């Protein structure tokens, strides 16, 4: 007689909603007549993401204390729920942003994969066990590999897909190897059991910790585990890049925070230093490399690497304030990231070729709303006031200063100063330069109006700016979520 564990369906409902949406969207590819296929698929995916966000919000409300789930292989807590809300809203915005993409077909498959990726991430952030951790990671990674290579008519897309498979597979292997070492050292898979069983300075355990951290750093795209990021971000369909830059980072960072604090609290002296070093390397490398980029997507890729650095500073503080700072920062960061790539997508559609900085010349005057939105995102990335990016940086720096890492604050400040050069350069191209040689509209005629994309970008701008003025409510949520971890 096999004893089945008690299943808390509510806690799993965000994952199930997205899985269901994914299945329906996939079926629509064959069962729905061609003329309404795209609408049905996109509508289903959008509905799935919105439903998942609502359900996750409900779970957040209903889970004041963490509860084990599925025989302690997962956990139902406010940290996971908040991350799920961020992920699901990001997904919904991406579905809107990709509505009018010039894709001849496969929109159903695209939507199905997007929803499945979302389901994997939503599952991943609730992992409380090395097996569910790996399962979640592979789940969303496999979907992303296909999504990256989805533009089969573009060689760069296929190349990016291949690179991502190889490097991502390597990252997963490292993570799995680390998990094996940790299991060997402690004989446990569950995070809290690992913490309880860990004894002293076990070399296997430390090696396992290092490899798990490295495996997650691949997904966070923190330097020196970032080498896939620029190529993949550049080659992937822009809407997929938007989703990856915001959602993958969110999921991987939240899980990093969780596993470090719940499974390795005894080793915190080791991993705080390791995370701080990775953060510094990311800040330095991401910012310096971004300075040299002409391709906007590559520039944003390096910017996302440097942001991984900022976000990791919050983790390295290993304090409740650090956790709050991380979760707060993820909100405006996701909005800015999705928004910026959505604007890139809009411009790419007009030019019909990859977007370099020259392609942005005068764009701010041609399309006032998109131009203004892009400026807001760039200023937000740079941490200017009136955007949530400012409070994100402020909270991260306060957490680091509070933890005694004043040198991290100085590194962060220096990195911000360098980052201004390329963020403001984008604004300069938008408004202050003209490139008469570049064809303005290559495809002929004025670009089709795209209200869905406008709504997506508008939502991103709204979140970016609103998270500045309403910093306290978001910080309260972040604080509740951080309270589910044992600091």
């Amino acid at each position: 007689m096999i004893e089945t564990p008690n299943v808390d369906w509510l806690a799993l409902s965000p994952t199930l909603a997205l899985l269901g949406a994914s299945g329906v969207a996939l079926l629509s590819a064959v069962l729905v007549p061609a003329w309404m296929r795209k609408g049905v698929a996109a509508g289903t995916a959008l509905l799935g993401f919105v439903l998942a966000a609502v359900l996750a919000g409900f779970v957040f409300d209903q889970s004041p204390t963490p509860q084990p789930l599925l025989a302690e292989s997962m956990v139902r807590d406010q940290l996971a729920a908040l991350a799920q809300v961020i992920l699901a809203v990001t997904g919904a915005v991406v579905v809107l942003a990709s509505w009018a993409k010039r894709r001849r077909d496969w929109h159903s498959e695209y939507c199905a994969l997007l929803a499945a990726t979302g389901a994997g991430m939503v599952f991943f952030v609730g992992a409380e066990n090395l097996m569910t951790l790996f399962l979640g990671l592979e789940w969303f990674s496999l979907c992303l590999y296909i999504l990256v290579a989805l533009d089969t008519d573009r060689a760069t897309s296929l190349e990016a897909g291949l690179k991502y498979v190889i490097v991502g597979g390597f990252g997963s292997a490292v993570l799995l190897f680390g998990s094996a070492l940790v299991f060997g050292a402690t004989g446990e898979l569950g995070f809290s059991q690992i913490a309880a069983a860990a004894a002293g300075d076990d070399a296997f355990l430390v090696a396992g910790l290092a490899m798990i951290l490295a495996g997650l750093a691949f997904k966070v795209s923190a330097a020196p585990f970032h080498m896939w990021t620029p190529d993949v971000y550049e080659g992937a369909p822009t809407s997929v890049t938007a989703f990856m830059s915001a959602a993958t980072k969110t999921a991987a960072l939240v899980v990093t925070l969780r596993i470090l604090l719940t499974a390795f609290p005894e080793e915190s002296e080791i991993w705080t230093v390791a995370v701080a070093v990775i953060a510094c390397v990311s800040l330095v490398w991401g910012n310096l490399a971004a300075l040299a980029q002409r391709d906007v997507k590559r520039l944003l890729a390096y910017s996302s690497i440097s942001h991984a650095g900022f976000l990791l500073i919050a983790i390295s503080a290993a304090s409740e304030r650090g956790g709050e700072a991380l979760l707060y920062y993820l909100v405006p960061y996701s909005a800015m990231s999705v928004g910026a790539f959505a604007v890139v997508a809009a411009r790419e559609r007009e030019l019909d070729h990859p977007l370099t900085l020259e392609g942005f010349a005068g764009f701010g005057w041609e399309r006032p709303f998109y131009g203004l939105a892009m400026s807001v995102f760039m200023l937000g990335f740079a941490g200017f006031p009136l955007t949530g990016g400012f409070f994100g940086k402020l909270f991260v720096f306060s957490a680091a200063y509070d933890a005694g890492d004043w040198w991290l604050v100085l590194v962060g400040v220096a990195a911000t100063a360098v980052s201004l050069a390329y963020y403001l350069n984008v604004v300069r191209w938008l408004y202050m330069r003209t490139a008469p040689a570049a064809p303005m509209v290559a495809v002929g005629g004025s670009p089709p109006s795209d209200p869905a994309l406008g709504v997506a970008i508008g939502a991103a701008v709204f979140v970016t700016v609103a998270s500045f003025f309403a910093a306290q409510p978001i910080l309260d949520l972040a604080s509740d979520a951080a309270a589910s971890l044992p600091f």
Partner: protein
Amino acid sequence: MLTTALILLPLVGALVVAILPLPRTSTAGLAFLVALMEVGLWIVAASRFDFDDGGLQLGTSREWVESLGISYSVGFYGFSLWLTGAAVIVSAAAIGYAMWVGRDRPRAYHALMLFLTGTVVATFASQDLLLFYVSFEAMLIPLYVLVGVWGGARRVAATLTFVVYTMAGSLLMLASVVAFGVTQGTFSLLDSGTSDNVWIFLGFAVAFAVKAPLFPFHGWLPLAYREAPVEVAAVLSAVVSKTAIFGFLRIGLPKFPEPVDDLTVVILVLAGAGLVYGSVLAFRAPDLRGIVAYSSLAQMGLITLGVFALNDLGLDGAVLQSVAHALVSATMFLLAGMVERRCGSGDLDTLGGMARGRPVLASVLLTAGIIALAVPGSATFAGEFLIMAGVYSEGWGYAAIVALGIVLAAMYVLRLISAVLHVRPGSAVREEALDLRPGELALVLPLVACLLALSAWPALVSQSSFPSDRAATAVVTNFGKSPIEFELRLAPAETSP
């Protein structure tokens, strides 16, 4: 509420101007109207302000980010009210000038100018360190675009140096803000105590020194002041630079008494060097805007001397001189712009002889000029005299430098006046170049009138800037929040006149 209205009116105005699809002239007119309403609102605020009391007034406070002790608290002291007054008047004149000139893309331009005004007012009104930082930084966004889009030929280089300098300073200040706020547990300037950490003070000091700018952090100044649209240069030198003085008066001195005490000599020497250096450069500058720009550097050095004299005379003089310099500098920049528009050039070599047949231009320029050179009886003279008297107690050498600065000011201003108005007509001065038009006169005359009024009654500003007119006491005691726990070299009570 009034303070909040004073901050919000230009910001909301900016939004309305940006969104409403009005024709060119109506857009500019609407923006000018908002700027005038802002001046009116400031007059209302000033009339409700009890200058005898002099403590924080018209204050509002509301929690913003409670977990970190960040609040939206605003309010005015005497000195910040006067600085705000100068700011709104200069902004109105600048927006009026932009309307007169008819800048391209008026919706974006005027929205940015109003936004700039709002952030400047917010800076002067802020009583929370974070709010101060936010407004201080937000000023950069409109300035960046205004210089970068509407500036002269080398505008891109100008914006780049300007932003690199100011952001480097601002980010150091952010580190200091974080360190100070986290250590104090609150960001409120009203609640926080003092700190003896010299590094935190330096972060603030460098940011203010870049913004002012003070020697040797003025590298961005010549390019930015020359390449910016002339009315933006006016706002930069008249108003934006004064946010640094506000920062020293409200944050630098009250919150860091010991570091200030340790570093006074260094800062005084640098300020004195800046005064002389700026004056000499102004005397050598080949163009109109160069003279006004470098004279601004010199004047900021002078004001800083007054601030770091750390006594009643010096502080009162610094505030008076800040207000006077704001009005003088804006007037001179706008006049420089009017001359440039007539001649197509600001090179002194190509100018000259403009007084003949243009009596109004000559009279206004001469009036503004002799106030700028601090002729006895003018507001600037009163300010400089107070600063000189204040700084004398720090050492006669500083007073000598101030005196030298006054002499040099006379030299460069007279050089400017004679090069523009007198000598023989320059190659760029065409016979048919007009005298000042009524519209232009209507912009410049109010500024000159304010200056004349201030000249007649400088005590209006200098005696109502600090609580109970005891400037040093207010500053040293962190505006009444902390007792004097240590001995300054100058006990405030002894130095009051």
